[in-house]
């Protein structure tokens, strides 16, 4: 891939200079803190509000380590996907629209390198944010639930969460390659999210969807048996390069 290293350095510098890196990390850390706290204090807060409003009550499960991990996974996955969409939606579309893609691609730089640099840089940003977000969540969980739980399992959960985000980045990058509009690219990502949510509920193929990896990931963190996950994990590992190849095939012949 001609020029990959140079373009990757440019992409990483762009994440830093445009403050997107800081914004994403801040969001992940914020929701990393909020995850354990939401689970720990939600019941008390709801009960307190209920008693203030004269007996109004909502059934909230008591705080637990399992609930804590669910909150961490939910928070970081949901807001992580939003960040992945925001990072990837304009990455190619805006460069095509502004003409910077044309400027770069009349130099000795391959189109595959142009796309790969973006996918790797966004994945790296999301990776650092996931490490920091789940790291903070881990510390808060230890403070709130001083029960021993597997760090390796928790790390496996974080790694799976990150890979889900990378998969959504690859989908949105494909959308951004197909269109000249960042909004349309985000639309592609959101539609894919919706379809995967529906397909994820189906038997047989459901467990292979990226969004279906959450449950086994949490089981790993709890030190429980996640069930048969080799197939879904391998499928999702292959999904990202497959999406990248499709993006490249589209972009290879595209006129700028």
């Amino acid at each position, binding site marked *: 891939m*001609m*020029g990959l290293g*140079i*373009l990757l350095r*440019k992409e990483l510098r*762009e994440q830093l*200079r*445009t*403050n*997107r890196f*800081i*914004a994403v990390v*801040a*969001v992940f*850390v*914020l929701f990393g*803190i*909020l995850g354990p*706290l939401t689970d720990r*204090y939600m019941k*008390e*807060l709801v009960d*307190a*509000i209920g*008693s*203030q409003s004269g007996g109004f009550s909502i059934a909230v499960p008591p705080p637990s380590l399992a609930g804590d991990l669910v909150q961490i996974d939910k928070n970081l996955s949901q807001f992580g996907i*939003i*960040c992945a969409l*925001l*990072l990837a939606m*304009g990455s190619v579309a*805006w460069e095509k629209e*502004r*003409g*910077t893609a*044309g*400027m*770069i*691609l*009349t*130099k*000795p*730089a*391959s189109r595959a390198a142009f796309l790969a640099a973006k996918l790797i840089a966004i994945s790296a940003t999301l990776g650092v944010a996931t490490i920091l977000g789940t790291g903070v969540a881990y510390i*808060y969980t230890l*403070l709130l639930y001083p029960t021993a739980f597997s760090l390796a399992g928790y790390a496996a959960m974080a790694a799976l969460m990150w890979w889900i985000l990378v998969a959504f980045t690859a989908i949105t990058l494909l959308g951004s390659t*197909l*269109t*000249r509009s*960042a909004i349309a690219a985000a639309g592609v990502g959101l539609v894919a999210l919706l379809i995967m949510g529906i397909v994820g509920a189906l038997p047989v193929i459901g467990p292979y969807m990226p969004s279906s990896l959450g449950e086994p990931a949490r089981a790993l963190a709890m030190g429980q048996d996640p069930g048969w996950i080799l197939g879904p994990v391998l499928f999702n590992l292959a999904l990202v390069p497959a999406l990248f190849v499709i993006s490249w095939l*589209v972009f290879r*012949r*595209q*006129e*700028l």
Partner: protein
Amino acid sequence: MAESAWMHTLDATTIALVLIPILVLQLGLMLFALYDLFQEDRRVRGDSKIMWALIIALVNLFGPLLYFFVGRDDSRGAEIGDALPASAEKASADSIARVLATWPSLPQTTDAAVVTTGLTKRYGGGVLALDHLNLTVPSGSIFGFLGPNGAGKTTTLRLLTGLAMATEGTGSVAGVAIGGSGGELARNIGYLDQDPRFYGWMRGRELLTMVGQLHGLHGAELRGRVGEVLEIVGLTDAAHRRIGGYSGGMRQRLGIGQALINQPRVLFLDEPVSSLDPEGRRDILEIISKLRGTATVFMSTHILNDVERVCDRVAILNYGHLVVEGPIDELLDRYAQPVYELEPEPRQPGAVDRLAAAMRGQAWVGEIKTEPDVVRVFVNDPKVAGAAILPLVVASGVNLVRYERARPSLEDVFLRLVAESGPPVAAPAPVPVWGLDGRGRR
């Protein structure tokens, strides 16, 4: 009391654990975004900083996110008034010549720099942007590629630089076939888009360094080349500034700089001066003219005065067809009609109209153009015209302050040939082309 239960729930530890980190993060991100927004050279989508400030401040957490991901516009330069001082916008003719004297000259060769054979581009919906273009551009020339808007100039440049694929035909640039892969074409060319946009967050020197690296330069050679290019385009003083703060003229010069970093054999410039003020135009034309002998320059434009100033050959394109190609002097000799200019004395009511009426209908008159104080008479037979014009002026009763046979301009030739070539006789048959955006951009 319920309130005391609430207070009890949120004890000091909880407050420290829950509220402080969250507030610090949220407020910190918001203030950071607001600080970024009100940087002097920052541009935002929609142009309203107040609107973005409200979004950042009021839309909890997502405001700053939206601003950083959607709101910031890093591709545009500064507006007039925000730009760097004029002292940062000077290109010195001496320094350009001094640096270019150290660059390798183009090898003496009879091979053409650009050759196209039947090059055709048809967009989705059957729009024929370029129709069997056969063109040969001699090595070392400064070549003006002329045509009205929509003639197919930009399409040709996109085909020659590899940004678009030809529907039919072949072409080569510096001996390298267009449409291939592997970077061989890119290593031999430089390209400047008609509206050059760069990464606004980058500094001028960083952009040139990155482009140099893509061309395989590194170490001392890279640093030296970047320095030379900055000197040629007169941006040495502004090299450490963010491109987002550059004026339109500075961006244009940076665009030429990035196109020159590899000492290209062929430099493609798409409307390089059309958006510039007279001073900016002069600077860019100075650079282009100094490149003679160092690179073949292929320049599309519709500003004919500039072409006459710097180009030695031109091609005129209309409706995707090549109308004519050749050295400027040859075209003027072959196609320019001799023109006589008659300027009446002031304070003679209707003088211009009376002069025009006196000339009209004469067999040797090709065309008459009137301006508020000048009548321009294009003639078919200069010998007859030379003898006949003055008696007709006397008969019209108009006194002249000026009567001269003017040198026909390239503009006269251009307008005549474009008018004569007209639109294509038959509309092209629509051929569906698979296009991802379907916009048929030229």
